[in-house]
C-alpha cells in the first residue's frame, strides 16, 4: 500500500475527529498548569502524542480519549518540572470553621467575582481541580470523568463532592479577606 496516501488519510481523520477538541484539551492544560505558556507546552505535547498514538484510538469518544492523554501528559510534565515537590496539602481542619459559618450565604457565592473564582480554582489541589473542571467546564458525566482519570465511579463522586466543598471554602475565604480589607 502507498504509505504517503495512508498517512494523508491519517491526518485528515485526526483533523476531523480529534482537532475539534483542541479547545477542551487546551483548557484542561491551562487550568492544570495554571498559566498560558505551560498550557501551550502541555497541550502541544498532548496533541502530538495523540497523533502519534492515533492508531490506538478505537473509535470511542474522541474528547474523552484526548483528555485522558492531556491528563497523562500533564502528570508527566509536572513530575519533570518539580521532581521532588509534593503538591500542597489542603488542610481541612484549617478551613472547617469558615465552612460552618458560611452555609446559608448563597448570595455571597453567587456574587463571587471572576477573579475570586479563578483564584480559588487555581488553589484547589490537582486531583480535585481536574474533576471540578471536567464537570463544570467540560460538562463530562461522572462515567466519562471516571474514564479519563481511570478511577472508580465512587472516587469520582467523592472527589467532586470534596472538591466543591473546598472550592466553596476557598471562595468564602477570598470574600472574607476582601471584606476585612474594606472595613479595616
Amino acid at each position, binding site marked *: 500500500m502507498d*504509505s504517503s496516501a495512508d*498517512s*494523508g488519510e491519517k*491526518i485528515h481523520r*485526526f483533523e476531523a475527529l480529534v482537532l475539534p477538541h*483542541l*479547545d477542551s484539551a*487546551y*483548557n484542561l492544560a491551562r*487550568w492544570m498548569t495554571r498559566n498560558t505558556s505551560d*498550557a*501551550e507546552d502541555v*497541550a*502541544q505535547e498532548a*496533541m*502530538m502524542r*495523540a*497523533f502519534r*498514538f492515533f492508531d*490506538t484510538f478505537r473509535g470511542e469518544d474522541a474528547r474523552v480519549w484526548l483528555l*485522558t*492523554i492531556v491528563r*497523562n501528559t500533564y*502528570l*508527566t510534565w*509536572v*513530575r*519533570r518540572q518539580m*521532581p521532588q*515537590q509534593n503538591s500542597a496539602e489542603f488542610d481541612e481542619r484549617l478551613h472547617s470553621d469558615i465552612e460552618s459559618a*458560611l*452555609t*446559608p*450565604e*448563597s*448570595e*455571597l*457565592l*453567587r*456574587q*463571587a*467575582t*471572576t477573579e475570586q*473564582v*479563578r483564584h480559588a*480554582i487555581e488553589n484547589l489541589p490537582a*486531583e480535585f481541580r481536574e474533576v471540578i473542571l471536567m*464537570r*463544570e*467546564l467540560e460538562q463530562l458525566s*461522572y462515567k466519562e470523568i471516571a474514564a479519563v482519570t*481511570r478511577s472508580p465511579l*465512587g472516587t469520582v*463522586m*467523592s472527589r*467532586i*463532592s470534596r472538591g466543591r466543598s473546598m*472550592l*466553596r471554602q476557598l*471562595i468564602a475565604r477570598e470574600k472574607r479577606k476582601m471584606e476585612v480589607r474594606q472595613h479595616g
Partner: protein
Amino acid sequence: MANHAQRNLLHAYLDDELDLVRSMELEDHLAECGDCANEIASYRALREGVQAADLRQQPSAEFRSNLLRELRRQDQPQPTAVVHRRIPRWSWAAVAALLLLASAALVLDISQRSERRLATEIVADHVRSLMATHLMDVATSDQHTVKPWFTGKLDFSPQVRDLSADGFELAGGRLEYLDGHSAAAIVYQRRKHVINLFTWPTSGADEEPRAMAHQGFNLVEWKQAGMYYCAISDLNRQELTELASLLRK
C-alpha cells in the same frame, strides 16, 4: 444531625447523576430537611458563580497554527521500529507457523485481549505512581538497599540493578499488585522521565523484548529466567528498548 443525605448524593443529584428512585427519595428528604436544602442552594449558587466566571479560554491563533504545522510535519512517513517484527529466519518455520496459525487464532484472540487488559492495568499503575505521593516506598539509588527491602515483602527476590553508568538512574522501588499477584516496581529515571519496571515470577520460556504503545505510553515487555518484566514510560521506544537490553545482560 442524624439522617442527613450523604454528601456525595447531594452532588450527584445536582449533576443529574441519580437514578429516578434515588432522586425522588432525595427530593422528599430535601422537602423536610432545611440543612440539606440549604446545602443544595449553596452549591447551586457556587455553580452559578463558577459559570458566570467564564473560565473557558481560547488558545491563541498562533498556537493553533504552529500546532497544525507540527502535526503535518509529523505526518511524514517515519522509519518503523524493528523491535517487535521478527521475521522467521527459515522459510519452513514460516510455513509451520502458518499451519499453526489457524488453530491458534482463537487462543491468540483471547491472549491478546488479556494482554490489552494487562497493558491497561500497567498504564493505570504507572500514572498513579506519577501522582506526587506514590512513586516510591523506598527511595534510594543504592541497589544494595532496594533489593533487601523487597526481601520479606515478596515471595520472590527481584533483580535490582543500578544502571546509572548507562544513563538509567535507579530511583527506588515499591510494592504493587498487578494482574492478580504481587509485583515489584523498580523505578528508574532518565533525564527526569520516570520509568517503572514491573516484575513478577511467571511460567514458560524466555521471550524477547516486545515494544508496544498503549494509551500514550511506551511499554516493553519480556520474559527471562522465570520472570516477567514490563518497563513503561513516556520515554521514547528506542531508549526504553535499550533499558530492556541492558537489564537482560
